[in-house]
């Protein structure tokens, strides 16, 4: 418990990595607590490898865009998995018309994407007028909120929401066109499927990563290795 190590805000990622490794044995024992310097929510699997900092910045907005069926949901699930893998909760907010992508979230796909189902909550359908309130409430309490954007949100509510995110450290993932300017924009295209042995096997996802202040990069995601489900 009283390990004597006091987490302090690191200035460079090297210091961060150093402190991280110094703390590793202690963290294993005490488990809890998000150290103050943990500003990045690490994303695992192939998605993490194409993100600028190996993850997403806490307190920011990530937009995941693409046409229905292109893999937007799968990529957003990868971000939700980062939260549940870190012992936090992930929420999935649905709107009545579910934006461009119809239907509701499939639990089995969530599990395959690495989401710990015990810490996944689905909220909805949330009417447009309540969307900002619901997302704000969730952002106050949990790690990653994936939300399908409503037809429109008042700019004032957007500003309030962004301020709240910065304070709480939650990540808001907009599955669809974001009503605010995102810190990270992922454009997904996944139209190449491999059909083998009389069934769909996997698909190649192409993700265009656009992080603020960095050049735009296009990555091919290695197909996720299927885990026994």
């Amino acid at each position, binding site marked *: 418990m009283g390990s004597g190590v006091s987490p302090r805000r690191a200035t460079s990622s090297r210091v961060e990595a150093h402190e991280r490794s110094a703390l590793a044995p202690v963290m294993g024992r005490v*488990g809890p607590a998000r150290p103050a310097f943990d500003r990045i929510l690490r994303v695992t699997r192939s998605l993490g490898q194409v993100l600028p900092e190996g993850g997403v910045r806490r307190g920011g907005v990530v937009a995941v865009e693409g046409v229905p069926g292109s893999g937007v949901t799968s990529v957003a699930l990868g971000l939700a998995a980062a939260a549940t893998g870190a012992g936090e909760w992930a929420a999935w907010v649905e709107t009545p018309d579910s934006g461009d*992508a119809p239907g509701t979230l*499939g639990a089995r796909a969530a599990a395959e994407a690495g989401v710990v189902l*015990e810490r*996944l909550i689905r909220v909805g359908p949330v009417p447009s007028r309540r969307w900002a309130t619901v997302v704000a409430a969730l952002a106050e*309490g949990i790690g990653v909120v994936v939300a399908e954007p409503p037809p429109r949100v008042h700019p004032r509510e957007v500003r309030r929401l962004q301020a709240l995110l910065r304070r709480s450290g939650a990540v808001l993932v907009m599955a669809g066109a974001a009503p605010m300017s995102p810190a990270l924009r992922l454009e997904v*295209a996944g139209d190449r499927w491999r059909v083998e042995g009389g*069934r769909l096997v996997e698909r190649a996802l192409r993700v265009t990563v656009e992080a603020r202040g960095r050049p735009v990069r296009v990555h091919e995601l290695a197909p996720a290795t299927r885990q026994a489900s």
Partner: protein
Amino acid sequence: MAGPEDSTALRTVCVWCPDWPVAALRLAGHAPATAPVAVVGNNGRVRAVSGEARRRGLARGLRRREAQARCPDAVVVPADPAVEVREFEERVVRPLEAVTPRLAVERPGLLTFPARGPRRWFGTDEAVGLRIVKVTREAGVTARVGAADGAFAARLAARHTDDAGPVLVLAVGETPGFLASQPVATLGEVGLDEPAGRFLRLGVRTLGDLASLPAVSVATRFGPDGARAHRLARGVHEAPALVGPPPDLTVTTTFDPPATRVGEVVFAGKRLADDLLDGLSRRDAAATEVSVVVETERGERHTRRWRHPDSFTAATLARRIHGQLDAWLHHRALHDGHDGHGGQDEHGDEAGGGVTLLRLVPEELVPARGRQLGLFGADPHADERAGQVFSRLQGMLGKEAVVTPTLTGGRTPIEQATWVPWGDPAPERGNGAWPGSVPAPAAARVFDSGQDATLVDAEGQPVVVSGRGELSAPPARLSVARGRNPQRDHTPGSRVRAWAGPWVHDLRWWDPAARRRRALFQVITDDGAAWLVTIEGGRAAVTALYD
């Protein structure tokens, strides 16, 4: 739900000594044995009254002057918590240790223990109860005994006894009915006077009324205390969520040189209590049972288990430590002739023989407060914070709008998962293979009711599947009704780039009237989207999208 095995596990016996502050003073010779007695606490209000005084209109909570006005010949004596602890220890706890070693003292005058152990010796809960009444009577104490499923019910049962029948045993399964008939005011027993008052004002009169309210609304509206009251009313045992706390939560302090004054040990005890609660709160836990262990340089060791109906604070725990030391030293002074303790002056006494060690062992832990969420991992507060948000959203959007999934087994994406409102019990996880289910990867978007579609072959004829699972022709075009917007209905139809399947399900084949057959296809359209299409009774519908 509590099965029979469960209920024996939580079967609890409660021993209650009525009007203990009065009884203790009488036993110690500080109050007259027959005259009406009112014991007044530090705040100037009556803390307890004797039976005679009660019959003459005195009651708890009266001001000293009111009491004297109502019953001028009542003897008013100041409360003496030290005497209460000491006499209880001497005349009730010690003798009862012969009945069971697992006694937990909630406060002087009230203790509980699990029924299971002693019942093996005495045969029935009644026999255990009668034994207790006999043992305490020999020590000059009137005791009442209640036994029920759970500590709260046992406590109420003990309150329902009288001189003629000092033991009340609620048979296994009787507890919920008994609880339902109790007025909500009984929640005051466990320190929930405040929510009890609010329930009453809303017209909720009995615990049964309270239990019939939905748990979520009670939790949202009345907070953690309300939720706890609701659990008690439903007869849900306040089970320790964490059993067998890790040993590192135990805190110990040693005295070198040995502490010779009670005050010194109590002072150290306060600090130790702080340390213990600090360690617990870091794990998001609170203690409801703590053992206090004292050792002296003469090699003596004294252990007492204390219980708190809610959970200990540093102050309440320090008071228990004080009481225990005091009672123990007094006992030793009486029995060894060792002049270690003189009675009234609590802080100046010698802790005869010198205390060398004081240890606090948390015996039973509960989650710190609010809902009993599982403690999964990492951030210890994540679950609590999340839980608060979820109940708030359920209050805003309705319970069914906030749901959590369990994989329950089945062949189609809809059947494979069950989403239940947050806070409701999760269904059993499904396992085993489901022959004919569509293999992984799973579709990320599922259409609960299916979306109308047409799947046609190259000639424009609907694709049909025969009884043996043979296709009329390979699918060539798929068109899907999108959304609920009629304008966007039926896209012109996309060319099928590739397809797989079918997976044919013969449902309820044993019942000719209800027998259904359906065929599932994976279809990839021109734009690269992959769909799960179900054909049943000649009609096609899209049931999932691989997004």
